[in-house]
């Protein structure tokens, strides 16, 4: 396999934790949602995915957290070609990826504490090894007094913070977030951004899909800008803040 000359990152694309080589994706017989994407994300990088609604931001994240497969091209995660990765290995790749879903995907019958602990339990951790960490994380996202609460009793912003806590609790190698500040106020949005930046500082590769241009501008981090399924810009936001 030859190295794709279009890999946009200056870092060595072959050491990237995420690498797209001419990747396209479609749902069933629908037209392609993503087209000919080629880029790589080095370990420890921080990017936003921007673009208008329907540009393919969520689909891009789905490919990375292995909820969908490319219809064309090669996708590498942690140096492994996901198409060639045995089914029994894929769960272990997923455990290295934390996801904040746009629709939260909280389990309504579990308390906030239990929801936050799901990735750790799935990975086989013993309760004694994580209960303190989960409690501290929930306290940090402002849910100290809501640990017993069931998701249906939580407000939208509380659900979002809980979903973020669940995504980061396992200290993932990659953190993906789909509109993570969509339901929180400005203050909480900044706190969440600081959490993501802190995780990034500790080595986590972060990719956030967002419409929030203010968040992007404040972070000063580069963007992957999509339009109609195509990657039209990768790097710092052009002067003037346009995409």
């Amino acid at each position: 396999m030859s190295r794709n000359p279009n890999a946009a990152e200056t870092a060595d694309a072959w050491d990237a934790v995420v690498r797209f080589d001419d990747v396209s994706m479609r749902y069933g017989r629908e037209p392609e949602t993503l087209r000919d994407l080629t880029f790589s994300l080095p370990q420890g990088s921080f990017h936003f995915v921007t673009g208008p609604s329907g540009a393919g931001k969520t689909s891009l994240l789905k490919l990375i957290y292995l909820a969908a497969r490319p219809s064309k091209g090669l996708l590498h995660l942690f140096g492994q070609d996901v198409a060639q990765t045995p089914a029994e290995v894929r769960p272990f790749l997923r455990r290295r990826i934390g996801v904040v879903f746009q629709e939260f995907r909280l389990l309504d019958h579990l308390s906030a504490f239990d929801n936050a602990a799901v990735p750790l339990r799935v990975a086989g951790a013993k309760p004694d090894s994580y209960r303190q960490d989960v409690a501290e994380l929930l306290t940090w996202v402002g849910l100290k007094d809501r640990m017993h609460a069931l998701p249906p009793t939580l407000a939208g912003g509380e659900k979002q913070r809980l979903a973020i806590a669940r995504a980061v609790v396992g200290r993932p190698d990659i953190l993906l977030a789909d509109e993570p500040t969509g339901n929180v106020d400005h203050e909480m949005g900044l706190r969440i951004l600081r959490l993501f930046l802190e995780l990034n500082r500790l080595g986590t590769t972060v990719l956030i899909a967002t419409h929030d241009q203010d968040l992007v501008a404040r972070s000063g981090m580069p963007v992957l800008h999509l339009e109609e399924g195509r990657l039209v810009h990768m790097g710092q936001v052009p002067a003037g803040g346009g995409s």
Partner: protein
Amino acid sequence: MSRRGGGGPLNLDRWRPAPFLPERDTRDSALVFVVAVLCFLACLTALGVIASDRAARGWSHQLSGEMTVIVRPKANETPDSAAGRAAETLAGVAGVAEARALEREKAEALIAPWLGEAADLADLPVPRLVAVVLDREAPANAQTLQRALQARGLDAVVDDHTTWLADIQRGAAIARWVGLGVFLLISAAAAAVVAFATRAGLAARREVVELLHLTGAEDAFIARLFQARFARMAAGAGLTGALAAAALGAALRLGGGGQGLTPVLPVAWSDLLAVLPCPLAAALVAAVAARLTAASLIRELS
């Protein structure tokens, strides 16, 4: 651990992980009811098959242990003395436990239904009958009895019930196979409903499957959760159905004394043990259905 709708700080020392699947779910009540009813019917059919098989074997046993001899008196003797002589002759044959001449009234009573009440049986030469009970250990055959009667100069025909016995055995076999067929049909229906309802129940919890899958749970881990959950539920429903069928069987046994409610369908106490495998079978079917369904759902997600 989930305190429904509650809030407040958590006592970390007391916290224990809650099950990924809720212990109780209102969506399961219909499934539990249907499985319990089908298990009840399957158990009831099993009891019916066992009882009808016992009844058939009882009839066969009774008929094969007896013979009837029809005695025609000769011109120089009365029917009573001919029958008496035949009974005396047969009682001395090896393999005969008892031979007893039936009174005229009994013989007339046997043929009365065929001739009607208007017939005057006193004018008819009604043949006399001798009932022969055979030795169970070494029973005599019809030819031996016939030879013994001929040797004493008696004009008699030995009926070893072969014709009736064959009919009864054929009828019993049909009843047994039909009962078994119905039992298998109901069991298959129960299994199909358990499997179908398990699929529906699992599909209703698709969000749990998806979340666990996306957070890195192995397929076997997810399948085991659902397998255990639905197996427990089906076992409970199967136990309910089995106990209800056993209770009805016990009522039939008590209501009919030693022979059950009716001699045609005698229920023994030991028959009630036949319902024991039901909860296990229901749990097994549900577990297999849940595992296969979960595996197929996970395949769709991968």
